[in-house]
């Protein structure tokens, strides 16, 4: 089963980390992914820019309107996601727990995926 692990955290906190704090967390996060990567179970990984860089297209009216900022104002924002291939929800949760140890605070939403097209993007 493919899962998306959606990372939520307070952007206010995350984007006031110092460079050293940032690097320390990133190093630990990469280490936490290693097991899944080696097992060939880790798909695309994305980190999103802060919501201040976001634009929303509201299409519930005609014509659709463009709004600055994210879709919803919440205390925690969607800051990134992983795509993983797991045998069970428990395995996905274990992965999220490992990530959580590297980066405390916030929440991971483990969401089964209904459709996945890897696409042809090359970085």
């Amino acid at each position, binding site marked *: 089963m493919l899962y998306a692990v959606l990372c939520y955290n307070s952007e206010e*906190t995350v984007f006031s980390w110092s460079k050293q704090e940032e690097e320390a967390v990133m190093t630990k996060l990469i280490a936490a992914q290693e097991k899944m990567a080696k097992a060939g179970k880790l798909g695309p990984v994305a980190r999103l820019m802060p919501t201040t*860089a976001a634009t929303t297209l509201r299409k519930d009216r005609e014509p659709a309107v463009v709004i600055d900022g994210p879709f919803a104002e919440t205390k925690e924002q969607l800051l990134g996601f992983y795509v993983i291939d797991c045998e069970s929800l428990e395995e996905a949760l274990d992965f999220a727990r490992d990530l959580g140890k590297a980066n405390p*605070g916030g929440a991971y939403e483990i969401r089964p995926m209904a459709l996945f097209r890897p696409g042809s993007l090359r970085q």
Partner: protein
Amino acid sequence: MNDIAWIDAALTSARPRAVSALLRYFRNLDSAEEAFQNACLKALDSWPRNGPPRDPAAWLIMVGRNVGIDDARRKAKQQALPDEEALSDLSDAEAEIADRLDDSRYRDDILRLLFICCHPDLPATQQIGLALRVVSGLTVPQIARAFLVSESAMEQRITRAKSRIAKADVPFETPGAPERAERLGAVAGMIYLIFNEGYSATGGELPLRAPLCEEAIRLVRLLLRLFQNEPEIMGLMALMLLQHARAAARFDKDGSIILLEDQDRSLWDKQMIAEGLALIDKAMRHRRPGPYQVQAAIAALHARAARPEETDWAQIDLLYATLERLTPSPVVTLNRAVAISKLRGPEAALQMIEPLAPDLSGYFYFFGVKGAMLQQLGRNEEARIAFDRAIALANNAAEAAHIRSHLDRLQNNGAPASKKV
């Protein structure tokens, strides 16, 4: 991160929100700061045991307010009150206060706190010192280091600023739209001042002062989160990100200046550039141009050029022309002349800057540009005179050393150097 590092980061990021809300309660900067300090002490005790609260700022405001009120009572009655009781059942209270303090309230609170720091009675250096102390929560020694002054001098500067503000009328009522726009403009200017304090650092000062750039970016991020559809705030943030992205490439190992066109562009911070470009794109959609947006757009054209030869000088010239219209100044025209020199040669650029001479007779950069133009034209004797003048006006050793390298080239081969300022 361990517990303490995490709590520290949470306290730092909650500070502007918490101090500014406490200021609204206590209407006095010192009381607000003290209440925040006390709330932080409680947090260090409570959070490791109970886990961090969902909304650290709301928790700190609640606790800070209670402690502050207790303190005030105690001082009034000269007797101790049981403060654990007043603090009981925080979890319920937290949800309640978080509801009451909706984002629009926070918005004006934080803007007020920042606006107080740029009170027109305060000289720029005091404004910046105060903002870094009160809003960012840097310690006095940290700020003193960044400003290259002694701790006692900085302490005095901040104390003076505070006492001036205590005497001034602080507007506590909710601002109307025009006041809000005016405050936003003043605050943006102050944040850019903080940035430039860091950006103008050279040589050995660099490691001490560069954190000012990061702090300014943090503050503008905060401001943009509160005012999500202000194109000038997007522009300011883009401008600072695009400039700061070049930090690692701006100086060589000896601390000498490396010009934009000579910089190793692989050292530019790609993440910062990407965010800066995204923001300027967003800002331009509003079709409400302002000086920060235009300057950011110029920086964006430099950032987009993989090699200096690919720089779109024609577009840069147009943007400087816009900037001249928005904020006419001889310095802007001088910058435009550099673009003109790339488009139409040094002769045209010289013609453009000649009329600026009376206004810029004390400006290092004017003589640097003038000397470089003359040098390109092979008018070496005049170039030498301009460069000598530039050295005399240099603001620091790095600037002087940079011009001296031009002079050396003049002396060594007498031929026009290929490098341009």
